[in-house]
């Protein structure tokens, strides 16, 4: 493997890790206001239970995104500038959603008074839905190819974002993360919460399956993705659909919630290899051919080699202490759990 592909794999790992872990956070945030999910009069407590389920992992999950952007800048500087500034409005909205959601998760518990609670709750949900939607839009835009101007810069306008295929990807991502979050709650919530979440997850998974077929149909009709390797991408999409169906099947009582969650993690991860393998060797494909390849995007060899010396030590250490965190806070939430968020 070349140095560049090592770093591309690591970049993919960080983005995939973030989709899996950050993904269920966003799902949980969206479900914190589940209509009818709480018994009357128990709203507040119910909502706190929901957030408590993800609380000890929240900070450690979000940081996968921070690392993704850091490595993007360090190892693929010529992609970073083009990608973020090219898709400026979508990324700006994404980041704004992350800011509001992050603040809501961390500060909601400090609020006093019903009014303040309502505002924070709304931001909590928005902070889950908006990033999920924006990631779906980003995936849609990147699989379709981004228009490139004569000066070489990438640029999107409103009609790019509002394209049916791109919107369908956005919708599918929202449902996917919501279903993933519900599957997580079925695993970690206390009995009452978990039962409700299991039912919600099954409904959401069916909706996700339907929504994920939509972009595929649009592509077949010639109004969707323009991938370099449609064959590979179709196989990965089929795997994704199978993972969704399998999660739904496992949640119907045919397997442990742990197994359902593991399969759901695969579903949340798959969009990353789908994009990466589908467009390879382009990391940012231009509409109508061409784009930026891995080789062009990467930093020069000295930089990659220098970073690699740190990477080989750091990545296993990071995985180890993250795993320790999951281990320490394993098991269902219950009364004995310290609450804070």
């Amino acid at each position, binding site marked *: 493997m070349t140095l560049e592909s090592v770093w591309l794999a690591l970049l993919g790992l960080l983005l995939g890790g973030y989709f899996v872990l950050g993904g269920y956070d966003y799902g949980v945030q969206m479900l914190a206001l589940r209509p009818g999910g709480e018994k009357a009069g128990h709203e507040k407590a119910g909502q706190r239970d929901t957030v408590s389920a993800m609380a000890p992992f929240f900070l450690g999950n979000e*940081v996968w995104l921070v690392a993704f952007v850091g490595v993007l800048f360090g190892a693929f500087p010529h992609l970073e500038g083009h990608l973020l500034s090219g898709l400026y409005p979508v990324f700006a909205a994404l980041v704004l959603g992350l800011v509001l959601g992050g*603040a809501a998760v961390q500060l909601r518990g400090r609020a006093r008074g019903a009014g303040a609670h309502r505002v924070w709750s709304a931001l909590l949900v928005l902070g889950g839905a908006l990033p999920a939607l924006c990631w779906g839009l980003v995936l849609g835009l990147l699989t379709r190819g981004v228009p490139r101007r004569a000066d070489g810069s990438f640029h999107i306008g409103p009609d790019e974002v509002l394209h049916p295929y791109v919107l369908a990807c956005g919708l599918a991502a929202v449902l996917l993360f919501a279903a993933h979050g519900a599957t997580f709650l079925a695993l970690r919530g206390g009995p009452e919460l978990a039962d409700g979440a299991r039912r919600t997850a099954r409904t959401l998974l069916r909706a996700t399956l339907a929504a994920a077929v939509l972009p595929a149909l649009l592509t077949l009709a010639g109004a969707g993705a323009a991938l370099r390797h449609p064959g590979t991408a179709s196989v990965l999409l089929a795997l994704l659909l199978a993972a969704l169906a399998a999660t739904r099947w496992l949640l119907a009582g045919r397997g442990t919630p742990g197994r359902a969650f593991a399969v759901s993690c695969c579903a949340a991860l798959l969009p990353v290899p789908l994009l990466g393998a589908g467009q390879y060797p382009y990391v940012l494909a231009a509409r109508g051919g061409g784009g930026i390849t891995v080789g062009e995007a990467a930093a020069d060899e000295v930089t990659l080699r220098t970073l690699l010396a740190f990477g080989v030590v750091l990545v296993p250490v990071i995985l180890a202490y993250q795993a320790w965190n999951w281990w320490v806070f394993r098991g269902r939430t219950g009364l004995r759990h310290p609450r804070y968020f």
Partner: protein
Amino acid sequence: MGPTDLARLQFAGTTGIHWLFVILTMGLVPLVAVLHTRAARTRDPARRAVLERATRFWGQLYVINYAVGIVTGLVMEFQFGLSWSGLSAFAGNVFGAPLALETLIAFFAESTFLGMWIFGWGRLRAGVHVTLIWLVALTAYASGYWILVANGFMQHPVGYEVRDGVAHLTDFGAMLTNPSALLALGHVALAALTTGGVLVAGISAFHLARGTRETELYRLSLRLGVVVGTIASFFVIIVGDFQFPLLERTQPAKLDALEDPDAPWHGVLVTAMDGMTLIGNTVSTITLIALPLLWRDWLVRFKPLAYLMTAMIPFPFLASIGGWVFREVGRQPWLIHGELTVDEAVSHVSTGTLAVSCAAFLTVFLALAAVNWTLITRFALRGPDAVQLGTTDPLPDDDADHLRDLEAYDMKVTT
């Protein structure tokens, strides 16, 4: 305003707000770690209880503050690519490396361990729990180091050469030991400790002067705050003075602009520098006087003196904004000194888009800052009774039944 000005305003506003929270993070976390360590080591149960309450009180204040630091930091990370794509095009081979390493070395560990510390009360052994907060402290300073390596490169680029119009890394070691980064790290760390010490002393003095049941807790906090504040504010001046000879060597125009009334940004630079030095000298003098007055609580028996400690809280924040404005504005028109100007670096994004995003981000950040400071103030005024950190919901009598329910439920789902 053109795209460059908008991008600048957005960047300066975001960094400024990020910094106002980060400086307190860096100033408080070592104090929380010291208190937690002392609590874990004390045998006397009453004393131990006080120290643990103090840890949780200052710890919660720190965690409330942390929230804004983290969300603004996220935006910072994205902003280089969003607004300054010319920076990565020219210097990506060099400038990106410290940022990548910051995330892998510092942020990953800091976030994970802080999460574990917040939720680890009663779940982790005391030794492990205390180690976690020290790791959080260590990684907070590590992140300061890496970001200053990046910023030091902008001020005084070293360890690179330009080939075909693009910078290439030639000497990573030189970059890591850039004097412009190391001196700044010393000065920033001491500025942070000054800020944290003064804040802890000010809040404690306020409660003691007003009368409180928590005398012991606030007395030990006052001591810690005054001692740290005195030492840090003394050395922040010393290290600040060391920066002038370096600037003479690396950025003489920055210093000249202080003297020359016709230089661009002259007024801003003079105000920033004078504000910083005036505050530095004043804070250092007051804390030095306060230190011997800790004896027999003279400091808080004489109320005006106690309230003076409280009134001092905002000033280190102002000083450090002044310091950054001097450092960053004095760098103009260069983004990377002598290599890349700000105009060359700005992204090809339309003025309209930038105006909307600038307005949206700054509005959200100002609102968040205001909300967060309100929460901090309210919590500081209510005192340790309001602490939620490390508490579980009250256990009902049927706790054993509840656990059995949980197990039965898991069995049911499994089979």
